[in-house]
């Protein structure tokens, strides 16, 4: 907040018809937009003034994005783009200031990414010079550009039969890579050259779980039914299930992408609910993201607290489909996943599974202490 306050105070000097106090109030109005259109009217009035600023104000407006909510960041983004249009026409595009903003990693991802995108379009040589420095950037979106460069370099070296050089480039890129497509390409490149790649570790998938099923999900009623594991996990307990006794069984994924597949221990059942339980030992209290991929109805609890749930079936699944921000406590953390299978009988509705990983906001795996 101190950083934002400084920026807003800096805007006391802003021109374009704003008096200092008006500018600060205007930007606060934009930053105050909220859910269901709250604050839109006040923000609209302020936006007109912000968008009228001169090119010299672009970086200041970008910095107002720091700490703002995603809606406010989009309001400010539109103001920056409008100012940038005029800056291009006037030949006063502030490329050096934008490059400095990109380099300053105390700024949020949103303003840095926008600045970098504008540089790629308006000052490609400046953007090109920034690329190698983005490999370990706190913004995963910016790492993409540095990784892509190294990936190309590795492939070129591989084509020249420079195995040592190619492996070095691929390994360096993989160290920074957080994008699934790039990671896959790098893993393939390394494996083609005889190198080992531990993808579950790179991503931070949780591979070892205890599973229990089958509870009912007839008429999709299981999603909102709190079966015994939701009340309390007792790994020695047995329950009356749908058509058979529900018991806990250990399960370790052999899948590189950490797939936890209920069909393996329980068979291809329909209209059923299963639970998966595991524990995660965190070395210290830290902000993290639990990232889930699942095409069944699901709910996730961390340390007994429900994080989110979604009752959609068989519409698609991907890595990091859902990102759930959490705080891990130091020591043991418990994770419970509910996974519901529905009544559809088509071949493409057989899957009853999920994948889950723990990482930071950049997508860097957080590995258990043990």
């Amino acid at each position, binding site marked *: 907040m101190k950083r934002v306050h400084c920026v807003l105070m800096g805007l006391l000097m802003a021109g374009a018809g704003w008096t200092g106090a008006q500018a600060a109030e205007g930007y606060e109005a934009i930053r105050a937009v909220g859910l269901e259109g709250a604050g839109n009217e006040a923000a*609209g009035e302020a936006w007109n003034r912000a968008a009228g600023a001169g090119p010299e104000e672009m970086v200041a407006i970008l910095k107002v994005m720091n700490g703002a909510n995603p809606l406010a960041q989009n309001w400010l983004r539109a103001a920056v783009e409008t100012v940038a249009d005029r800056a291009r026409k006037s030949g006063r595009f502030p490329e050096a200031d934008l490059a400095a903003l990109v380099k300053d990693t105390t700024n949020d991802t949103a303003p840095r990414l926008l600045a970098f995108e504008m540089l790629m379009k308006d000052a490609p040589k400046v953007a090109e010079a920034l690329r190698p420095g983005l490999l370990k950037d706190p913004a995963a979106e910016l790492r993409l550009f540095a990784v892509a460069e190294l990936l190309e370099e590795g492939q070129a070296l591989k084509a020249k039969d420079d195995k040592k050089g190619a492996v070095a480039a691929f390994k360096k890129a993989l160290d920074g890579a957080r994008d699934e497509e790039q990671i896959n390409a790098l893993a393939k490149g390394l494996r083609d050259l005889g190198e080992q790649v531990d993808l579950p570790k790179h991503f931070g998938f949780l591979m070892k779980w205890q599973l229990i099923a089958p509870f009912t999900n007839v008429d999709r009623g299981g999603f909102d039914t709190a079966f015994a594991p939701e009340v309390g996990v007792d790994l020695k307990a047995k329950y009356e299930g749908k058509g058979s006794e529900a018991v806990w069984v250990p399960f370790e994924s052999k899948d590189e992408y950490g797939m936890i597949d209920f069909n393996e221990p329980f068979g291809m059942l329909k209209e059923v609910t299963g639970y998966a339980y595991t524990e995660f030992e965190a070395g210290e209290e830290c902000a993290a993201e639990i990232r889930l991929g699942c095409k069944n109805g699901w709910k996730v609890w961390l340390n007994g607290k429900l994080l989110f749930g979604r009752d959609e079936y068989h519409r698609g699944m991907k890595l990091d489909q859902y990102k759930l921000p959490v705080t891990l406590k130091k020591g043991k953390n418990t994770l419970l996943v509910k996974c519901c299978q529905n009544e559809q009988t088509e071949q493409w509705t057989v899957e009853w599974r999920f994948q889950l990983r723990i990482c930071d906001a950049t997508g860097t795996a957080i590995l258990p202490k043990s």
Partner: protein
Amino acid sequence: MTMKTISFWLGLAVPMMALADDWSQFRGPNGSGVSEAVEQVREAPEVAWEVALPGRGLSCPIVVGDKVFVTAASGNEQGTLHVLCFSALDGNKMWERTLRATGRTMSHKKTNVAAPTPCSDGKRVFALFSSNDLVAYDLQGNLLWLRGLMLDYTNASNSLGMASSPVVVKETLVVQSENDSESLALGIDVKTGVNRWKMERPKAANWTSAVVFGETVALQSSKGMTGVDPMTGKVQWNYADGAATIPSAAVTKKAIYVPSNGMTALVPEADSTTQLWRAEKLKPGTASPLVLGEALYLVNGSGVLVKADLATGDEVWKLRMKGPFSGSPVASGGRLFIASEQGDLQVIDPSGAGEGKVVHTVALKETILSTPAVSGGALFVRSDGKLWKVK
């Protein structure tokens, strides 16, 4: 009042209302797919200009006055959402604004985040994306307001992607966000972006778009069709015999032709609907049907154009075209126009005594999954990479 004064006020008023030549939403006026403009598309149009687009999209262009608006999505995970404005005359880019998606951007690989078609009330342009980001600009590209509907309603999404296009009626933007989980429709004040009303909708994935019938907005879903007062969200009438979730209804000033149990012709009235006919053999595929003159036209799942009698639903003829089709046909000057997935923009003359005839094809040579816009005697067509004016 002097003529000068009258001219002044007319000059102010003209830009503030949708003109007859505007194509201001998905499938144009009322969602009918039929151009009522004086200047019609000729039988053998040619590419007048083409411009590059910065990202993918299935959304259709819209035309307001001399401006063409189109949306696109680009970047990692389709996270950058574009709204672009081009000159209809020469394709010159007049402005471009972008947003970062605030909702989930996952979709089936054939579709993408820029699937819903924008709409306009003649003063503003409203763009919706599958991520449920919704934004309003004035025609010069000044931001008026924005919403993140997936921030507001956290389970309002579809992992296959959403595609329902908004419509604007009586100062209200009607938005459908219908899916298996948190399914809803909203009436939003065009001036502020704030909800006038919010309505729960059937919990089922739905990619159809509303049509405008009289002063009601007709919302289609797997359950049927519901007429809603756009100002209040109050249900005016309801048809509950099921309907398709991909092709949208055809509409005229007298009736709605719903992809329901084949095709079903309905006349909505106060609190009820009257069924004119039902034709179970008429089965539209992905493309939405339209009414031209006294006939209903639809494209079935095999890429065959079917003409049916508007009064009875009886089939009149079939014409195999060069398909397959994801976009829908539009009509101008008594002809039909439709672009295939392979990029063949086909002109069909349906007026012959026998079956219709493909009279001209413009080979655009790119994958086209969207529906053309019609304005100023021209078609505006987009692919993932290009926007064309064909006149």
